[in-house]
């Protein structure tokens, strides 16, 4: 379960204070599929980064599975993120100089697993994301859809219970978007909590979306 209480994130410049997020209160239960709706700059990405613990708020609390993550020291926060949260970025954020296999294995390294266990998990993720045939290809040589599927496999490999997606379909063609939705649906069936930040209308007609959250100018409406 994700609990967000009175969350604020602002930036002070010379003249005024700009609120990226203001007084956000939100509770997301385990297994929910939540869509964050809003135009560019509304604060969706900021909210995702705060939930993932990748940024620090100016005030407020974020609790995940009862653990208040904001004030966790880096060692604990990173470990928590590594084990509980998988992230799919808008621009994929793959390590271009490494292969698909090695990209997917990257989040497993801080877990201190054996090479054998890593190999098992990577292969499972490759299957789910339907990208096994490209395991040895360099990430720089993949198409947009293939990169996105690699990113999905990487988000799944740690067996995280929460998947965060930031504009996941923004750079995909129609066929790849539909393929992406299929995989997302598979994940939802595995009882993962999924939060997608998007303004792509393809999500509007999905029947397995449990909640729509609209964000306008940093506030939930």
């Amino acid at each position, binding site marked *: 379960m994700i609990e967000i209480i009175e969350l604020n994130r602002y930036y002070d410049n010379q003249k005024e204070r700009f609120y990226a997020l203001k007084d956000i209160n939100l509770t997301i239960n385990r297994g929910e599929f939540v869509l964050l709706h809003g135009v560019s700059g509304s604060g969706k990405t900021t909210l995702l*980064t705060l939930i993932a613990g*990748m940024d620090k708020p100016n005030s407020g609390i974020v609790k995940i599975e009862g653990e208040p993550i904001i004030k966790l020291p880096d060692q604990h926060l990173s470990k928590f993120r590594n084990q509980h949260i998988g*992230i799919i970025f808008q621009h994929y*954020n793959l390590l271009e100089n490494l292969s698909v296999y*090695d990209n997917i294995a990257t989040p497993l390294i801080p877990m201190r697993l054996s090479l054998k266990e890593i190999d098992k998990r990577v292969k499972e993720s490759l299957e789910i994301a339907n990208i096994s045939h490209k395991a040895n290809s360099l990430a720089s040589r993949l198409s947009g859809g293939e990169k996105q599927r690699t990113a999905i496999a*990487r988000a799944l490999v740690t067996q995280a219970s929460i998947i965060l997606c930031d504009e996941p379909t923004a750079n995909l063609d129609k066929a790849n978007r539909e393929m992406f939705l299929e995989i997302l649906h598979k994940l939802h069936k595995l009882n993962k909590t999924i939060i997608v930040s998007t303004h792509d209308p393809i999500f509007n007609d999905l029947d397995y979306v449990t909640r729509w959250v609209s964000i306008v100018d940093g506030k939930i409406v």
Partner: protein
Amino acid sequence: MSSPFIRFLLLNFFSEKSKQVTVILFSIIIIFILSSVLFISNSMHYSIKEALKAQPDFVIQKMRGDKQIDISERVSDELIEIPSIAKVTPRVYGRYFIKPLGKSFLIVGVDFFDVQSHRVLEKLIDSTNLNNFFDTRDNMIIGRGVKRWMEDNHYDNNLTFFTPKGKSVTLKAFYTLPKESELFSADMVIVPIDIARKILGVSRRKVTDFAFNVPNVLEWEIVTIKVSALDYDLRVINKKESYKAYSEYFDFKGGFFLSIFLIVLVSFSLILYQRYSQLYSIERRQIGILRALGWSIKDTLKLKFFEALLVIFISYAIGVLLGYIFVYIFDAPILKDIFLGSFNIEVEPTFVPVVDIFLLSSIFLLYALPFIASVLIPVWKIATTNPKEAMV
């Protein structure tokens, strides 16, 4: 450090070789020069020590002003009276000037009956040759520098010396001293002691100096005081002072080199600092991604520092190996002249390989420590990139 981590480190490192190549190349050159100089210096210290092992602990000379003059044999009787001194060896040697060169040979007289000289000589040539050497009276044993000079000046195997009395003495080169001793014996001409007296004009009742041993090091100071008290113009030199003098000479050269090296080191450190700071903008996205995926600051610090250590290790291994080959296999052309430039006759030494962990630590401390110190802050900056950078 787990093996997946090592695998990731190596994969990442070798997939981005071009980033590291400049630093590695510079490092190799620096370590190569540094290790060559230290190998030469170490080798020379070792050769000096080995040569001095066979030398007597004390040498007594007679001085007039600042010039050494021949000393009466009777002084030996007075020396024997001092307890702690067991046996006194009279020595005859001196410089014989070759007019065309303006240089000189060192004529060393050897007494067949003298055990001390035998021991020294036996370090240089084997005993069979030594016995044959003393069989005839017109043999000489020469250093390699003398041999080269003879060949360059088209002397066959014989050399004629002129005595102060105007007579001539022709000697045959019986044996050439081995390469290993060239540092000290290059300009030596070893002859029977009475031939040495003839050539150098040292009378029968005199010698060039006396040599003796004092086994107990704690008694050296007392012995020095007692011997000096025998006569106002006696100079007492002990082995450690000879070693010190050579050491200071090479240390001076080493110190000079080190000061130049320090300037190079400072420049290298600044370049490194700047280079790694430049990498910050390129690498922060990569680190941002790793942090977003759950790598902690400790993990990313480990990654970046081990990358730097890999650069150090690769450069160190190649640089030291090249230095070793340059000095011990090719005898350090050009560089050796810096150390040996001021010798009497041209010396072409063979450097004895002397590599110990102390030497390797010295090279490491001079290179790796400043390297790590220079990149500490830039690497920390990169490794502590906010994971938010991955969202940009």
